[in-house]
């Protein structure tokens, strides 16, 4: 019955206390799990941009968007799923890799355009920026070496061309 899929929304909000909690409530109440949430300042002062990736039934999503829009401090809320947008995220991956494994880890990193940002006798941290699929692919290769820690920013998104996000 439930036909869950991932949606990416961008929400522009007045920078007032409590606005994040109100938005989170709307999602939680209707059984949508927020996968990632990025809050950042925008070009205008007093206004913030949130990029929300959430998993849930698409038939409920329209309702959620309307309920989010209704919040007094929400200026607008758009679903970008299926639109022509640039979506990127960044990940930091700490891999257990001593001197013997380093070369191969660096090869993987190189292939995906990742950077090594820390290195010790036993570990390395890679930083990668890109599409979710690409990051997933890199992580898959790295599982061969033990991934000790993973931290992802969550997706940020922008509409292509002249279109506003």
């Amino acid at each position, binding site marked *: 019955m439930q036909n869950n899929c991932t949606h990416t929304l961008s929400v522009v*909000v*007045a920078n007032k*206390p*409590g606005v994040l*909690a*109100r938005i989170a*409530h709307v999602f939680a*109440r209707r059984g949508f799990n927020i996968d990632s949430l990025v809050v950042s300042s925008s070009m205008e002062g*007093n*206004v913030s941009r949130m990029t929300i990736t959430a998993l849930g039934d698409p038939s409920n999503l*329209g*309702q959620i968007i*309307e*309920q989010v*829009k*209704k*919040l*007094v*401090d*929400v*200026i*607008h809320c758009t679903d970008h799923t299926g639109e022509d947008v640039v979506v990127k995220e960044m990940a930091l991956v700490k891999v257990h890799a001593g001197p013997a494994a380093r070369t191969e880890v660096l090869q993987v990193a190189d292939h995906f355009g990742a950077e090594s940002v820390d290195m010790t006798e036993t570990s390395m941290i890679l930083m990668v920026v890109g599409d979710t699929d690409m990051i997933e692919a890199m992580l898959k290769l790295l599982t061969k070496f033990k991934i000790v820690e993973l931290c992802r920013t969550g997706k940020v998104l922008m509409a292509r061309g002249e279109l506003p996000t």
Partner: protein
Amino acid sequence: MTKASFDGAQTLVKCLEAQGIEYMFGIPGGATIPIFDALVTTGTKIKFVLTRHEQSATHMADGYARATGRPAAVLVTSGPGATNTVTGIMTAHIDSVPMIVVCGQAVTHMLGKDAFQEADIYGMTMPIVKHSYLIRDTNHIPRIVREAVHIATTGRPGPVLIDVPKDISMAPFQGDLEAPMELPGYHPEAAAPDPATIRAIGDALQRAHKPVILIGHGVIISDACAAIRALAEKIHAPVTSTLLGKGGFPESHVLSLGMLGMHGTAYANKAVVEADLILNFGSRFDDRILGVPARFGRDAVKIHVDIDPGEIGKMVKPEIVCLGDARQVAEALLKAVGRPDTAAWIKEINALKKDFPLHYRRTGGLKMQHIIEELYTLTGGKAVVATDVGQHQMWTAQYWKVDRRNDWLSSGGAGTMGFGLPAAIGAQFGRPKDLVVSFSGDGGFQMTMPDFATACNHKLPIKAIVLNNSYLGMVRQWQELFYADRKSGVDLEGNPDFAKIAEAYGALGLRIKRAADVRKVLTRALEYDRGPCIIDVQVHKEQNVFPMVPAGKALEDMILEPRPRRGRPPVAAQKK
């Protein structure tokens, strides 16, 4: 008073007054003492009404707003004072009633440190307010109060909460009393109805043979009543209403079907099932009127007129959507529609009314319907009627024909027991010249009964009628019909003598036990104008409300007839 000599509390009171707040209901406490002091020191015109419980204060503000269309304020202290308002806020929110709730709060630097009487009321009420504020700077007060009243009263109305830490109340005010609102995300102005949509609705109406107009609370909020009436008369379509839509169209009008839904009239439900077009003005297609959402108006063209885009498609997928204010849409539509031929349909409707009328017997014990009908006759229906929640509420909705907007106060979406008496009190403050009556059950009445004292203090001539069946009757009915009459937790053994309760407050207490006394005692109550009275009506204990659409069933599965013999549920219910 020079600007520098104001403190936050005085500023707050001045600003609420400037925004047109006339009444404030509540109870003081440590965190609000500065605000209570400001009620004195500012010499404000706002009238403060001390209640016996904060929940009652919210229902009074609610009743005031429903009866007048204007918001009132609630003023309570932090912690338990604030949490006691939660039920009333939720009741107002789900029924779109404007209200300003001002709560005292612990001092700012103690927030989050479990200070004495600290409760995060701002966080707790987030899902049940239209908007809320925790004031962090005394100088923000004028902007916040202006925004709060604007938000509460525009668009789809609702409660707004303002949490005021004590240090904010006590600090000197050095800001701008005229500070403007800053609401970049709030645009309540309804767009003018789209002409193409209006034409589409007009065309659909022209094609329809069996149209039904459904009205909800939106019609009352936007005062679309005259336009709806003109429209119904022009296209000659019957009108049914939700519980909260009562009064949006005169129920004594020949085209009125009364209320539809779970306990609606049989002819309203049958008409909706038969209809080939359902034109909904300002109802949110609540589950109490739908039966089974997927089966509601399956073969009808459904048209949804609503001011809130969030309501469109939430419960029912309409064929035509018209966003806008009910009144503007009805007025536009009035110009766009022709006069479809509905003569055959009206004949069918009239036959339904004749074949399936509301009915009860005046013999075999005193019935709640009898009291309601008799008072309706005695008053000519000219009264503001508040109800509580339960069987008596549904019978009042069925038998009390509401002809005027704002004359019907009932907790619909929340079904909050304890609402009736305080709502009537609030209404009487707002409408001092009008007759105000409350119908409560013996269960719900006791939830806010202490506030009878408030009615006494102010000598409000409300008629508090307790339809006393010694049961939590509505729950007992469900147990009888759907749980093989296994009564569990519904016997209100230990009820007081409600007439004596009135006497204990020095008010008039009356009692009705026999059908023969109904008219005499009600007349006595109506004549009494020196203060409130309680009328304890001891009615038949085990009556059931019909028609009834059982939960989870479609409107066409409505149960009509009372059980044939004691203890035996009706046939439709047994199948469950």
